[in-house]
C-alpha cells in the first residue's frame, strides 16, 4: 500500500495542468478596442490602401496600439474606445462605400499564444451587449412560389409539346390542369410523367383534368433551399452593416438566428435584414451615344445606368428577365477556361431569354443589380422612413448564341468575380419572406454589469467554499481547494479551446460544477474518515477511500452528465449555455477531484510512514 502514482500518471496530470493553463491564459489579456477594414467589393484591400490608412490614423494623432494587414483586411488596435470611435468615423468618411469599416473587440492575446491556437472564450450577447434576432422563414410563401413556378413550367411544357389546354391554375396546394379531350389528357399525363417527376399527379374522375401536387421529398428540398438561401442572403447583408463576428445560424427547420455583437441600433439592423434585392437582364443600347445621354439627352426606349466602376452605360428599357426567374446560379470555368457563371432560369424566363438572344446574337447584354433599402432620414426633426431603390450594372457580356433555360454569363474579370456574381444571383433576394419572431438587445453597460456581478458572485461563493473546506478537512481540504482552483482553470481552458460561448446561465453552470467538484472530494474524504474510524492505517485508509468513492462518483456524475447532454440536445439559448458549461465542468471536476487530489495526497503522505492524517 504505497499510495504512489507511476511516473507516467504524474506526468500526464502535470501535462494536462500545463495545457490547461496555456489555453486559459488568453482570457487574462482581455480585448483591444479596434477598427477592422475590409473590402465590400470583389477585390480585397491592398498594401497601398493599408499604408494610406495607417498614415491617416497617425496624422490624426490617435493612439494606435498596433496595426495589422493580412488577407486583404486591415485591423487597427487602439488604446481606448474614444480613439477607436474617432478613427472609425474618420475612416468611414475617407474610404467611401467600397470599404466596410467595423468596430471590433480584437483579443489582445500575445502572438506566441495565438500561434498555439489559444484564444479567449467567446462571450455571449448577454455578457458583451448586442442584438439577437430570431427570424422565421415563411415556408408557406416559399411553397407558393414553387407552385407558381411549376404552373408556369407546366404551361410552357404543354405549349412546347403542342398539347392544347383549357386552363392551368393553382388551387389549395395543387396545380389543376384542365384539358380539352381524352387524347390531350393522355399526352399531358405522358409529359408529366416524363418531365415533372417531382410532382404527384392525381387524375380526376370527371372531365379531362388532373391535379399535380409537389411531392414530400420536393417539399423538403424547397424548404431546405429557402432556408439555406435566406441564410446566405442574410450573411451578405450583415456583412454590409460592418459588424465584426456576426453569428448567422440555422435553428430548427425554419428559423434563423442572427446575432450582431456590439450593435445597438436595432432599427438600422432590422432595415438591413429586411432589404430586398433583385436582378434584371437588359440589352445594351449600342445605337445611341452614351455621352449625349449623360448630358441629359436619353433616347426614348433606353435608360442611363452606371457600371460598378462608375462608367455610364445605356440599356434598353425593356427587361428580358428578372431575378425571380432565376432558379439557380453557380460559378465555374467555360470551355475556354475563363471565369463564367452558370444560370438556370424557370420556364417563362427561359422562353423570353431564348427569343431575345436569338434575335440579338453578337450584341452585349447587361446584368443590373437592384436593391430596395429602407432608410431612416431625419427631416425637420422627425424620423421619416422611405424606400430607396439602388441600381447598379454588375456585368456586361456579349451574346454568343441563343440560350434558354441554362446559360452562362462570361466576360468576367476573375473567378472570384464569377463567384461573387453567382452568390449575388443566388442570394440577392430572400427566397421567402422572414418574420422577426424574437428580438433581444442587451446594452453594453448591462453586459459589463452582468460580467462584473457574475464574476463577483462566483468569486465570493468560491471563497466561502474554500474557507469552509479548509476549516473542515484541514490539509485534505486545502488539497481539495487546489484541485478546485485548477478545475476552474480547466473549465475556462476547455471553453476557450472549444470556442464555446459563455453566457450568464453558463456562469451559473460553472457555479453548479463547483458544487459537483466539492461533492466528489467530500465523498472521498468522508470515506477516508470512515476507514480511519474502523481502525485502518492512514495509508490503507487513503487507498480504500479513493477506491470506494470512485464508483459512487462515477455513477453520480454520469447521471448528471446524462441530464446535461439531454439539455444540450433539446435546449436553446440560455439552457444550451448552461448545459455546455455543466457538461464540461463535470468532466473536468472528475479529473481534478479524483486524479488531481490523489496526486497531491500521494506527494504529501504516500510512500512514507504516517501516524495521523490531517483530515
Amino acid at each position, binding site marked *: 500500500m504505497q499510495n504512489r502514482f507511476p511516473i507516467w500518471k504524474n506526468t500526464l496530470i502535470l501535462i494536462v495542468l500545463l495545457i490547461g493553463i496555456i489555453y486559459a491564459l488568453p482570457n487574462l489579456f482581455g480585448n483591444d478596442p479596434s477598427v477592422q477594414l475590409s473590402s465590400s467589393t470583389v477585390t480585397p484591400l491592398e498594401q497601398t490602401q493599408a499604408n494610406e490608412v495607417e498614415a491617416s490614423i497617425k496624422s490624426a494623432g490617435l493612439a494606435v496600439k498596433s496595426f495589422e494587414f493580412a488577407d486583404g483586411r486591415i485591423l487597427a488596435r487602439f488604446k481606448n474606445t474614444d480613439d477607436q470611435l474617432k478613427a472609425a468615423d474618420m475612416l468611414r468618411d475617407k474610404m467611401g462605400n467600397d470599404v466596410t469599416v467595423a468596430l471590433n473587440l480584437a483579443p489582445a492575446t500575445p502572438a506566441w499564444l495565438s500561434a498555439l491556437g489559444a484564444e479567449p472564450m467567446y462571450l455571449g450577447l448577454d455578457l458583451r451587449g448586442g442584438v439577437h434576432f430570431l427570424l422565421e422563414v415563411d415556408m408557406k410563401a416559399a411553397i407558393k412560389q414553387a407552385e407558381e413556378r411549376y404552373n408556369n413550367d407546366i404551361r410552357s411544357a404543354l405549349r412546347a409539346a403542342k398539347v392544347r389546354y383549357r386552363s392551368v391554375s393553382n388551387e389549395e396546394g395543387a396545380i389543376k390542369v384542365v384539358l380539352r379531350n381524352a387524347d390531350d389528357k393522355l399526352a399531358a399525363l405522358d409529359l408529366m410523367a416524363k418531365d415533372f417527376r417531382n410532382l404527384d399527379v392525381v387524375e380526376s374522375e370527371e372531365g379531362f383534368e388532373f391535379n399535380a401536387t409537389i411531392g414530400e421529398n420536393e417539399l423538403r428540398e424547397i424548404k431546405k433551399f429557402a432556408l439555406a438561401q435566406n441564410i446566405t442572403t442574410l450573411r451578405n447583408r450583415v456583412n454590409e452593416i460592418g459588424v465584426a463576428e456576426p453569428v448567422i445560424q440555422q435553428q430548427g427547420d425554419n428559423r434563423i438566428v442572427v446575432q450582431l455583437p456590439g450593435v445597438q441600433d436595432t432599427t438600422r439592423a432590422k432595415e438591413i435584414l429586411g432589404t430586398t434585392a433583385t436582378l434584371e437582364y437588359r440589352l445594351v443600347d449600342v445605337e445611341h451615344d452614351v455621352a449625349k445621354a449623360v448630358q441629359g439627352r436619353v433616347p426614348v426606349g433606353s435608360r442611363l445606368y452606371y457600371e460598378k466602376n462608375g462608367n455610364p452605360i445605356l440599356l434598353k428599357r425593356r427587361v428580358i428577365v428578372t431575378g425571380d426567374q432565376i432558379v439557380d446560379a453557380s460559378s465555374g470555368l467555360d470551355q475556354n477556361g475563363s471565369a463564367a457563371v452558370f444560370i438556370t432560369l424557370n420556364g417563362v424566363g427561359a422562353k423570353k431569354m431564348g427569343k431575345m438572344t436569338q434575335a440579338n446574337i453578337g450584341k452585349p447584354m447587361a446584368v443590373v443589380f437592384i436593391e430596395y433599402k429602407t432608410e431612416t432620414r431625419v427631416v425637420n426633426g422627425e424620423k421619416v422612413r422611405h424606400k430607396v431603390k439602388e441600381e447598379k450594372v454588375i456585368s456586361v457580356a456579349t451574346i454568343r448564341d441563343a440560350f434558354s433555360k441554362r446559360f452562362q454569363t462570361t466576360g468576367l474579370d476573375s473567378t472570384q468575380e464569377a463567384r461573387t456574381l453567382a452568390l449575388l444571383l443566388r442570394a440577392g433576394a430572400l427566397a421567402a419572406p422572414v418574420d422577426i419572431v*424574437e*428580438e433581444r438587445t442587451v446594452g453594453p453597460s448591462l453586459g459589463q454589469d*452582468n460580467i462584473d456581478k457574475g464574476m463577483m458572485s462566483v468569486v465570493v461563493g468560491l471563497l466561502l467554499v474554500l474557507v469552509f473546506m479548509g476549516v473542515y478537512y484541514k490539509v485534505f481540504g486545502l488539497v481539495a481547494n487546489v484541485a478546485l482552483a485548477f478545475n476552474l482553470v480547466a473549465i475556462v481552458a476547455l471553453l476557450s479551446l472549444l470556442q464555446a460561448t459563455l453566457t*450568464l*446561465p453558463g456562469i451559473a453552470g460553472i*457555479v*453548479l460544477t463547483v458544487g459537483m467538484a466539492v461533492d466528489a472530494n467530500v465523498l472521498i474524504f*468522508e470515506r477516508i474518515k470512515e476507514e480511519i474510524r474502523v481502525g485502518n492505517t492512514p495509508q490503507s485508509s487513503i487507498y480504500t477511500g479513493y477506491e470506494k468513492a470512485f464508483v459512487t462518483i462515477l455513477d453520480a456524475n454520469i447521471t448528471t452528465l446524462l441530464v446535461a447532454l439531454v439539455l444540450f440536445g433539446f435546449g436553446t439559448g*440560455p439552457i444550451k449555455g448552461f448545459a455546455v458549461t455543466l457538461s464540461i465542468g463535470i468532466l473536468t471536476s472528475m479529473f481534478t477531484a479524483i486524479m488531481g487530489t490523489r496526486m497531491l495526497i500521494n506527494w504529501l503522505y504516500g510512500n512514507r510512514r504516517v501516524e495521523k492524517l490531517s483530515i
Partner: protein
Amino acid sequence: MFKQEIDFLGKRKLALIFSSLLLVMSIVSLALNGLKLGIDFTGGTLVEVGYDQAADLSALRASLDEAGFADATVQNFGTAKDVLIRIKPDENLSSSELSTQVLEAINKNVADPAELRRVEFVGPQVGDDLAEDGGLALLYSVFGILIYVAWRFEYKFSLGSVAALVHDVIITLGVFSAFAMEFDLTVLAAILAVIGYSLNDTIVVYDRIRENFRKLRKGDSEQIMNASLNQTLNRTLMTSLTTALVLLALAFLGGEIIHNFALALLIGVVIGTYSSIYVASPVVLALGISKDDLMIPEKEGVDIDEMP
C-alpha cells in the same frame, strides 16, 4: 461531527405525510394560481432601461399610455434607477417594431433620457415552442435516468430516483407558483439543474445501499438502508451546505437577472437533500427491495463467450 444512528426510515410515515402535504399544496397552487410565466413563455415585449436619477414611474406610465400601450406594466428592477417595462403580446402588433416604439415613447419630451439596458421581444409562437422543448427535455432526461439507473442498479431504484426528482420538481414549481415568482427560461434551466443535483444526491445514497446489501450479512432491508443513510449523512449535508453557499452568493450578488435562477436552485437543493433521504429510499423499501435483487449475478458461460 454528527452522532450517528438516526432512525430515518422509522419516520417514513411522517415523511410521507409531510411530502404529500407539500405536493398537494404545490399542485393546488399550480392549478389555481398557475405559474407567473416570464416573457420567454408568454411572448411580449420587455424593455429594461436605466436612468441617472431615480425614475419617475408615474410619468413613464403616462407617456406609455399616451403612446397607446395602456396595459404596460412598469416597475423598478433591483434599484430605483432601473425600470422594467413589460408589454403583453398583441396579435395585431406582432411586428418587432414594438420595442422601437416603446423606446421612442418613453424618450419623448424627457430631459433625462433612458439608457437602454436590454430589450426583449418574443413572439407568442416562440414561447409555446420553448415550453414544449423544455417539457420534452424534462421527459427525455427522466427517461434516460430510468434506463441508466435500472441498468446500473435495479429497476426499483430507478423508480425511486424518478419519484424523488418528480417530487422535487413539483415542489419547486409549487414554491414559484405560491409566491408568484417569475418563471422564465433561466428558472427552467435551474429546474433542470435541480434534477441533476437531486439525482446526484440520490445516486450517492443508493450506491451505499447497494454496497451494504452485498456486504452486510445481518439485518433486514430497513436496517441496512438506515445504516446506509447514516453513513452518507455527513457527505449529504457537507455537499448541500457548500453548494448552498455558492448559490446564496449567486442569489444576492449575481444581479437581478440571475436572482430567480439561483433561488430556484437553492429551493431545489434543500428539497433535493430532503428527498434523497426521505423519498428516494422509502420508495425503494416500499417496492420490497431485498438482498437477492442486488446480488452480483453469477457469470455463467463467461468462459465460452470470451473464446475468440
